């Protein structure tokens, strides 16, 4: 019974092959093995949401996924999304609205907000403030009181919908 596992996966568009400890979760794999420290280690039991990343196109809790189980998977982190420019408008809005204070929750909050915005774009709708709050309810922020974060997400949702129509 092996306690180490060979995996090959795509991380932010780059092929990565590593031998990982079976117990190593995805956040530790990203931070410790690959040096991608934009994904944060918070509670490590699935409550705080600070480790949110994309696996195969959908958001997941990085601390609740074993790296060993990801052979063949596609992983995207805040570093990848920043580099591609996919969420540049969202990041600008977070700065303008002061939606990041200490910044610990911010990368995961951006990933979760991007998930809502892409679902909204598919449906051709601007999410309500209530729907925004519901979607980010699993991402804890201890600084902002969430209001500025909701503002920023709403701003981008409205702007993107306007562009879609014109």
């Amino acid at each position, binding site marked *: 019974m092996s306690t180490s596992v060979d995996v090959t996966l795509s991380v932010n568009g780059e092929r990565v092959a590593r031998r990982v400890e079976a117990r190593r979760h995805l956040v530790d794999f990203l931070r410790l093995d690959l040096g991608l420290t934009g994904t944060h280690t918070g509670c490590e*039991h*699935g409550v705080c949401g600070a480790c949110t990343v994309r696996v195969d196109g959908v958001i997941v809790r990085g601390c609740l996924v*074993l790296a060993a189980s990801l052979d063949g998977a596609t992983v995207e982190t805040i570093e990848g999304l920043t580099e591609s420019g996919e969420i540049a408008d969202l990041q600008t809005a977070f700065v303008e609205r002061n939606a990041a204070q200490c910044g610990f929750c911010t990368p995961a909050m951006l990933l979760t907000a991007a998930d809502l915005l892409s679902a909204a774009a598919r449906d051709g709708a601007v999410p309500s403030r209530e729907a925004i709050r519901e979607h980010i309810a699993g*991402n804890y922020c201890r600084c902002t009181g969430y209001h500025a974060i909701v503002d920023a997400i709403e701003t981008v949702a409205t702007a993107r919908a306007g562009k879609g129509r014109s």
Partner: protein
Amino acid sequence: MKSPPLGYVRAMDMPDVFRLRANAGPDARVLAGGQSLLPTLAFRLSDPGTLIDITRVDALRGIRLVADGALRVGALTTHAELGRDALVRVRVPVLADAVGLIAHPAIRNRGTIGGSLAYADPAAELPAVCVALDAVVIAVGPAGERRIAARDFLTGLFTTALAGDELIAAVEFRPMPGRRTVIHELARRSGDYAMAGIVLAAGPGTPTHDPRPVFFGVGDRPILATRAAACLAVGGAAALAAAQAALDGDLDPPSDQHGGPAFKRQLARVLLARAVNSLIDARDAR
């Protein structure tokens, strides 16, 4: 918050699962979505030695209609898949409604219906839905498949009728034309486990026809409130109040971090009223 040292093996089909399990010994655990198992490992509440990853076993996937018109939902169906599936929306819409109450989007993308049933958390939504709809859990082991009614499958706190060498293959929901089912729960924060919840199925026709109220978060497993159901079936203006009073005989809630038995009973009465009223509203809206 790190897991104990683990072995990890990946099963590619069902014979693989049984072989790996036989080799790994009795403590080994099956890894599906991992959304409850991995936190217990992080807290070192369990030390299974080896995890058997079943997520690549295609036989455990898929949502389809089977011969008798039942909807068969593969054990590896994620909450997110359940929530957006067209067949589920038409055939068993309360499953999709329940998904909106389970944790958060990132967790719904990994957690599975089979995992939820096998874990058997008494405050979880899907086991209660399965009991209210009289669903059938299909267990599979080296000797073949076994069909178990959901109410018999959930035997107690985090305990099921699965044998040591079995796992859940699928859950079947038989067709119930005209029957309506609603789910309500009370939680302090969106996405938390419920302090108390109800799944109420009734019909066809009026909400007084064969009502089946099942409560979760108020016992060691989903509880079918038979006395309250009998009161609801009588109908009339006093039926709801009588059913609420009858809950005292149906429920014996243990204290938990949310409150004591009296508090839980009060939540159950409120939930019963909300569920009955939403069934009436749904009927009036037609």
